[in-house]
């Protein structure tokens, strides 16, 4: 028996220009449908990875999504801070295995600065138990050491020993620089595909020092720019330092408005001479070595999973300071609850688009049925059964849809490949380009199955027709 499939394939091959739009529209819809699934899955795991090793996040009283977003993803700014004393209290809890204090708010060329202590490198883990590792150098052993996330070092081209000045606030273009107390790059991290890649990590002591003006030491320096103007920044935290910063701290030059790119270039040129040198301010700061009074949040690991809930309750009911304790994995789920609606909508749209594509294919095949009666008569004359003729049509639909699906998968991977970097830059989640999962393959199988199913309509029509027509070619 001639494989009707081969025949169907040749028939489609001869009409590929006719089917071109069908291939294209089904392929695009397949791509759309799959990318919705993949983006959702990848975004979910991208959001889950940085918190996978953390049992609880404790911060000032706030909504769990707010706390999660700023403490882990550095999105948004907290309205209030929590007492450092609360951190110490949390750490002393017998069920708490480890606690990492973190403080946010400053930045460096658009990258966020996280201040913490040595616990971070000891205990923080991501992506199911991976510890933060160093590509070069080591964690800070000096108060003014800074550890750079992979991307920070790569994009800004920093080396070990470089001099880095942090900026106040977390906007891309900051007007206030802590340039009296620069930092020395002591380590560069390996890529983690979490927000840490885009973070500079410093000590809590240093963070306190660059914002501390109580003694007046650090701010005493000659005013460089006579055209200075005051800057009002709205950051609610680091209150203590704000007042004094006006006037003394403002040394914004016009040229800082330059594009980031240009700025980076300037910076590169300076690098060679711009190695870290300890100054007097550093020495004074180290003498004082003050800890901050306030921090942004605390990451907590517990001794056993069973104590998570009891600690959470205890923190939330805490009377000494209004605090929120969240289970990050649950908060991420909560966050995704919102995106579910978006996903369902997108799913419905892409399923409809798939069907429109399939209907386009159906109408093309149906149109062909009338024109192909002679061809069917020839096939019947050489022994094709009416059932074979039906199979030819089903085979054609299967091939058209199969090719379209293949094309759609190619489109998908091209799109994933092209969008992975922009997605990472914009939303900070790393799109892992993996082979299709079983459920995605099931979707493809379902589309193919639908194509075959709807092709029964023209197949039945041509079957009936060839029963009537027989071998009559004079139609």
């Amino acid at each position, binding site marked *: *028996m*001639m*494989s009707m499939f081969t*025949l169907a394939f*040749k*028939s489609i*091959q*001869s*009409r590929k220009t006719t089917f071109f739009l069908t291939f294209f529209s089904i392929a695009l819809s397949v791509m759309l449908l799959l990318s919705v699934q993949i983006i959702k899955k990848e975004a979910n795991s991208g959001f889950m990875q940085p918190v996978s090793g953390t049992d609880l996040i404790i911060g000032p009283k706030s909504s769990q999504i707010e706390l999660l977003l700023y403490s882990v993803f550095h999105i948004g700014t907290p309205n209030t801070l929590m007492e450092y004393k609360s951190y110490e209290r949390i750490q002393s809890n017998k069920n708490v295995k480890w606690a990492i204090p973190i403080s946010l708010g400053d930045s460096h060329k658009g990258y966020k600065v996280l201040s913490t202590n040595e616990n971070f490198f000891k205990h923080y883990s991501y992506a199911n138990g991976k510890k933060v590792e160093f590509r070069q150098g080591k964690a800070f052993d000096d108060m003014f050491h800074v550890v750079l996330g992979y991307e920070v070092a790569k994009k800004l081209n920093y080396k070990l020993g470089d001099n880095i000045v942090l900026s106040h606030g977390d906007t891309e273009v900051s007007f206030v620089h802590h340039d009296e107390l620069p930092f020395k790059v002591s380590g560069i991290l390996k890529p983690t595909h979490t927000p840490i890649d885009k973070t500079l990590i410093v000590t809590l002591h240093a963070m306190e020092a660059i914002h501390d003006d109580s003694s007046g030491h650090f701010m005493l320096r000659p005013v460089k720019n006579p055209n200075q103007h005051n800057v009002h920044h709205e950051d609610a935290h680091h209150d203590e330092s704000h007042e004094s910063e006006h006037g003394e701290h403002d040394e914004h030059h016009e040229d800082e408005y330059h594009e980031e790119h240009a700025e980076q270039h300037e910076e590169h040129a300076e690098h060679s001479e711009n190695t870290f040198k300890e100054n007097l301010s550093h020495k004074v700061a180290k003498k004082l070595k003050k800890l901050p009074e306030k921090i942004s949040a605390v990451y907590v690991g517990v001794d056993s999973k069973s104590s998570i809930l009891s600690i959470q309750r205890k923190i939330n009911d805490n009377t000494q300071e209004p605090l929120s304790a969240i289970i990050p994995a649950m908060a991420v789920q909560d966050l995704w609850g919102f995106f579910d609606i978006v996903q369902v909508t997108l799913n419905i749209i892409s399923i409809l688009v798939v069907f429109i594509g399939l209907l386009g294919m159906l109408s093309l095949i149906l149109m062909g049925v009338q024109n192909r009666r*002679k*061809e069917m*008569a*020839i*096939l*019947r*004359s*050489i*022994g*094709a*059964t*009416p*059932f*074979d003729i039906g199979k030819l049509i089903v085979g054609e639909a299967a091939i058209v849809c199969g090719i379209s699906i293949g094309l759609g998968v190619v489109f998908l991977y091209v799109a994933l490949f092209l969008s992975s970097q922009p997605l990472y830059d914009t939303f900070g989640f790393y799109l892992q380009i993996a082979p299709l999962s079983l459920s995605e393959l099931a979707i493809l199988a379902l589309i193919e199955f639908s194509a075959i199913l709807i092709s029964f309509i023209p197949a039945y029509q041509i079957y009936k027709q060839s029963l009537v027509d*027989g*071998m*009559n*070619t*004079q139609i």
Partner: protein
Amino acid sequence: MIELNNMQFSWKEALILDIEHLKIKANEKVFIQGESGSGKSTLLNLMAGVITPQKGEVIISNQHLSTMKSFQRDNFRANHIGFIFQQFNLIPYLNLLENIILPCKFSLSRKEKALKHSKTLEEEAIRLLGNLGINASSILKRKVSELSIGQQQRVAIARALIGSPDIIIADEPTSALDSKHKASFVKILFDECEKENITLVFVSHDESLKSHFQRCIKLSSINGVKAEEVE
């Protein structure tokens, strides 16, 4: 051998064919003459087992087609009968050789017979084309739709001949050809059927071709239903 006994066929309750007896012996070359609308196509469809009569029997090569199931008749047709149509004999999306060897894809026995002559089916197709006076290498690369009608009809003969079926049924195969080509077409068809011991049933309204045949049957004389009634 083709035998029809007391056969009646109706379409939508109108009797179209009523043939008491018709016998075509093996290796015979028969011209069946009939005007259009006289039930010619119906007769061919009955002989080929595409349709079955409501009454009577159709016996081809000692097989009763009327008792077979539809798929058995299709299979039987693939194995035993080659067809040549008026025109549009070739499937546009298959190339020349694919068109010729197509029957071998539907019939194992014809494939086996074809492979007795040549090593591959393609070689056999080229050999047949050579016999029909077509130098295959000159047109092999062309699309079948680019061939002349005369060439197309000869390719159709090659397809009907491949794997030596018992019977070749030709339905107005010359109507698209001019008179010069008609004669040579009939001659070639005759020669090949002779060589392979194939029974030839040649149906046409064109009486000018009658002279080539041993036997001529006027459809209207064997059909109990008169042409006016059929129309």
